[in-house]
């Protein structure tokens, strides 16, 4: 199990109804099932979809950008979007749909303002290629990159607010000091989001 999925899993309350957007092979949902959660996945990749089906996960192959209307208002307790927002064509709409489908969300995103990305851009003058963002610009699926303040501005824009924020290093372990220069030191962040009252 990926270290970041452990963290996501720990943020989902036991017994919750969970919608995992971009569920991959169903690792998270299978783990959450041991906590009594009832889950549904969305996965478009054929091999990952098949792996989820073989595990007995209910999984739908849908386009996150256009087909989240398949899910009713408040039909889940938690929506999970793990390192996927940056691959969508319309991140704002995806976030708004998440806010509609469940009262709370778990969102994890790579941080474009991570110091390694900044230094690569500054020193070599070229688009960063890193463990977190491993593709050259012309064939990356990560088409909507953002920094942590950028992500948080979108969260605010769709009527959500940050409940908790966990900053991760390149190995996806929590940073030792969470409050110091997060937008520089974090390779990735995991948020729990709730609707703004």
């Amino acid at each position, binding site marked *: 199990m990926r270290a970041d999925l452990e963290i996501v899993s720990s943020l989902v309350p036991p017994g919750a109804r969970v919608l995992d957007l971009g569920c991959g092979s169903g690792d998270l949902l299978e783990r959450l099932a041991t906590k009594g959660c009832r889950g549904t996945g969305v996965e478009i990749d054929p091999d990952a979809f098949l792996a989820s089906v073989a*595990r007995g996960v209910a999984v739908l192959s849908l386009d996150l950008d256009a087909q989240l209307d398949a899910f009713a208002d408040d039909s889940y307790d938690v929506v999970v979007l793990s390192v996927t927002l940056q691959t969508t064509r319309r991140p704002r709409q995806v976030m708004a749909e998440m806010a509609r489908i469940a009262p709370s969300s778990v969102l994890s995103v790579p941080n474009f303002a991570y110091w390694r990305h900044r230094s690569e851009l500054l020193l070599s003058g070229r688009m960063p290629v890193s463990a977190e963002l491993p593709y050259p610009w012309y064939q990356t699926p990560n088409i909507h990159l953002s920094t942590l303040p950028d992500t948080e501005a979108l969260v605010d824009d769709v009527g959500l607010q940050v409940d908790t924020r966990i900053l991760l290093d390149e190995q996806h372990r929590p940073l030792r000091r969470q409050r110091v220069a997060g937008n520089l030191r974090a390779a990735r962040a995991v948020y729990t989001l709730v609707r703004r009252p």
Partner: protein
Amino acid sequence: MSIGYVETQRVVLATRDDPLGLASGRSLDHVEVAYETYGRLNAARDNAIVVCHALTGDAHAAGHHGDPRRRGWWDNIIGPGRPLDTGRFFVVSANLLGGCQGTTGPSSIDPSTGEPYAMDFPLLAVSDFVTTHRRLVRHLGIERVHAVVGGSLGGMQALSWALEAPHEVESAVVVAASSRLSAQNIAFSAVAREAIMRDENFCDGRYHGTGRSPDVGLAVARMMAHITYLSEAAMTAKFGRRFQGSDAPRFGFGVDFQVESYLRHQGESFLSRFDALSYLYLSRALDYYDPFGEPAAPEQLRALAEAGRRVLVLSFDSDWRFDTGHSLVIARTLEHAGVPVTFREVSSPTGHDSFLLPVPEYHAVVAAFLGALRAR
């Protein structure tokens, strides 16, 4: 691996003392059903899979009746090691009520008159097919089936069975189906029926015993329907604009292009295995099918969700008869109701008929779905 020799069996499932009540309010005093089984029912009687056929199918889904080259219509998915694995599952396949391949239908004898029912046969609904299948399964000593599986009209039966009797099914596999035909779908059915009913040998349906039968109408209906089962790309690949038995056009109104010859053959060969009255009754059941629009639907969906029954919905990207939009309506309605649903549009160039073909991704998903349920 393929199944070997099989025989179609017959059983009487309704009598005067125990008639079959229909959705229309009418009932049938005598219903006989033709069916086949493959594999073995286990001691717990919980490994049964019911296969539902489409508009013109029959009970003979797998294996052969003596000539190993002539195999059942879904032989490629049923057998040891195949997605409907007869090493694990007991597969049941029955001819539909209203059909003409051994099960009671409009061309059967009406016991009250001694004559074929013809158009006096009651109008049928998809739920009547399900009611009949449920009787068959009970007759076989099965209280709950592991899965109901079908494509096109067969998928509609699988969906309806889950909705009408969620306690009797663990899961449903709904392939290339629709929960509500579009105007275009109904239009195709309408033209097919017009071709049959306007044939001068239709005789208001009382053609049996007259030496006449609406062969022209039935063949034309089949030819037209067949076009809708294939994609344009599949027809182009198969026939292009090639000429039949010639490199050059003959310039006339006879069968000249290969596609014309193919369709004529499809129409002619259909006559030997299908009855015009069954075509009318079964296609009409499709037109009126609208399970989510029924007054009972909200309660049925709630019960299905509460029972936690799983539904697999699959479509094919080149299917324009029941395109992915139809499957999405089913998936979405079930998901909104809280039913655990799995959905995917499978890529296949062969149109609506893809559900009958061994498309690798499609078969892999069906096998994974049925196998995962079994493992739980």
